[in-house]
C-alpha cells in the first residue's frame, strides 16, 4: 500500500520534475494578487492578506487537480492501471500527494516573495502555515479527483468547479474581511468551513484563535478523503 502510493506518486511527479517551469507558472496568479492587490490593503495589510492568499492557493491549486485525471480516464490509462494489482487507494492518494507537494512548494515561494513586500513570519509560523495549507489541499484534492472520476467530461467538470469554487472563495473572506459586510453575508460566511480555515491560517501569523479552523480542516480532510477513497474503490473496483 505504501509502496503502491509511492509508485503512483512518482509516476505523476516525474513529468513535473522534467518540466519544472510549470510550477513557476503556477504561482503567477498569486504573485499578481500579491503585487497588484496586496498594496491596496495599506500598512500592516500583509500579515492579514498573505495567509488568506495561501488558503486561496490551496483551493485553486487542488480543486483543479481532477483535470489531470480526465485524459487518463478518457484514454486507457486508468483502465490499464486498474487491471494491475496496484491498490485502488494508492491510485488516489499518490496523485493527491503530488498536488500537495507542489502546493507546499508554491506556497513557500509565495511566502518568501511576500517577505520582500513586508510580510513577517518565523520559521515555525511558516511551517505551521504550510501544514494547514497542505491539510486543506489533501481534502480538496481528494474530492476533486473523485468528482472528476464521476463526471468524466471536461466541460461538466469545469462547470461543477466554477459553481462551487467561486462561492466558497467569496464567502471565505480571503480578499476582504467578511465582518465589513451586512449581517446576513457574515452569517453565510460562518457556515463556509473555508472561512474558518482562513481565520485559522491568519491566527498563525497574527493573534487569534485557531480552534474552529482546525476543527473545520480536520472535518474537511476526513470527509474529503473518505469520499475520495470510496469513489475510487467503487468506480474502479
Amino acid at each position, binding site marked *: 500500500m505504501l509502496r503502491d502510493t509511492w509508485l503512483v506518486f*512518482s509516476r505523476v511527479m516525474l513529468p513535473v520534475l522534467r518540466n519544472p517551469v510549470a510550477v513557476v507558472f503556477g504561482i503567477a496568479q498569486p504573485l499578481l494578487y500579491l503585487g497588484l492587490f496586496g498594496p491596496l490593503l495599506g500598512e500592516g495589510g500583509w500579515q492579514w492578506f498573505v495567509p488568506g492568499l495561501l488558503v486561496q492557493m490551496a483551493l485553486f491549486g487542488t480543486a483543479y487537480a481532477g483535470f489531470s485525471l480526465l485524459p487518463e480516464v478518457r484514454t486507457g*490509462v486508468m483502465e490499464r492501471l486498474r487491471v494491475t494489482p496496484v491498490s485502488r487507494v494508492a491510485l488516489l492518494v499518490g496523485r493527491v500527494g503530488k498536488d500537495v507537494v507542489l502546493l507546499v512548494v508554491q506556497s513557500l515561494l509565495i511566502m518568501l516573495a511576500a517577505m520582500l513586500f513586508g510580510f513577517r513570519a518565523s520559521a515555525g509560523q511558516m511551517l505551521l502555515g504550510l501544514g494547514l495549507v497542505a491539510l486543506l489541499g489533501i481534502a480538496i484534492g481528494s474530492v476533486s479527483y473523485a468528482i472528476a472520476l464521476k463526471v468524466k467530461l471536461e466541460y461538466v467538470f469545469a462547470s461543477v468547479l466554477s459553481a462551487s469554487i467561486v462561492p466558497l472563495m467569496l464567502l471565505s473572506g480571503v480578499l476582504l474581511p467578511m465582518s465589513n459586510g451586512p449581517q446576513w453575508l457574515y452569517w453565510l460566511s460562518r457556515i463556509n468551513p473555508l472561512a474558518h480555515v482562513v481565520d485559522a491560517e491568519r491566527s498563525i501569523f497574527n493573534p487569534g484563535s485557531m480552534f474552529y479552523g482546525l476543527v473545520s480542516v480536520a472535518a474537511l480532510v476526513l470527509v474529503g478523503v473518505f469520499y475520495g477513497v470510496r469513489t475510487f474503490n467503487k468506480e474502479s473496483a
Partner: protein
Amino acid sequence: MIKARGLARRFTTKTGPVDAVAGVDIDVAEGELVGFLGPNGAGKSTTLRMLTTLLQPTAGEATIAGHDLLTDPAGVRRNIGYVGQKNGSGQDQRVADELEFQARFYGLSKHDARTKVSDLLERFDLQGLEKRGVITLSGGQQRRLDIAMGMLHDPRLLFLDEPSTALDPQSRRNLWDHIKQLKADGVTVFLTTHYLDEADYLSDRLLVIDHGSIVGEGSPDELKHRVSGDLVVLGTPQASIVASKFENAVIDGEKVSFRIPNGDRALPGLLRDLDNIGVELHSVQVHRPTLDDVFLTMTGRSLREEANAA
C-alpha cells in the same frame, strides 16, 4: 486458463434493464489463441471487462488463470495481462518510464523492472524510443507499447481488446506477427475483434457472440464448414448435364455453381465421376466460405455491414 459459467451483465438504463451479456460459458485451454468475434455492441468488450475484473458480473462465475474471479480478483489481476481498446500509456510520460512503473506496479524490483523493460523493448521493436514521449509515437508503436505493458509480469494469459483497430494495414500485419509470436512462446491469448480477416488469421478457435449470447464456436475452418459447404464452380460446355447431378446448382452460361460440404476433399472423386460419364471440363474453382458467410448464417446479419455502419 479461462472457465466461465453463465457469466452475465445487466445494465439498468432509463428505458429498463438491458442484458449486455446474457450468460456465456467460455472455456479456454492453456496455450490457445482464441478469438472473440462479434459486431459492435454484441457484448464482446463487456465480457472481456468482466473476465479482467474491470466490471462486476451480475450473475455467473469464472476461474481465470487459476483464481476465482469473484472471490480473488487481486489474484486474477496478478496473473493476467490486459491490453484495452484504447491506448494505455500516459500522454505526458516517456516510453521507458511508463514501462518501468508498470512493471513495478506488478511488484518487480527496480532492477528486475529495468531488465524486463529492455527485454520487451527489443521484443516489440521499440528500441531507441526509451526517452521519447508517448505522445510522439506512431499508432503502431503505441499499440506495441500497449502490448508490451501487458506483458511486463510474464502473464501466462493475455487479453487483447480489439488490438488492431485504427492501424494501417502494414502495422496490423506487424502486430499480428507479434501476437503469433506470443502464442509460439506459450502464452494463452484471448482477443476480441470485429475483423474477420484478423479472427481468421490469428485464432485457433473462435467464439462468435451476438446480442450478448454465444451463437457459434469452433476453429475458423470448422465454422466455415458448418455453414453451407464450399462453393464449387465448374466451367463446362455440358452445363445442363453437370447441373442435373447436383442439388440447387445454378447455370450461368458455361459455368455451373453449387455448394457441397468439404469441397476440397470431395472434389477429386467428383471430377473422376464426371470424367467417367464423359463430361468435359475446362475450369474448376472451389471457394471456401468466408467468416462473413458464417456470421450471416448464424445471425442473419452480415458482419461487414455492421462494421461499415459503425
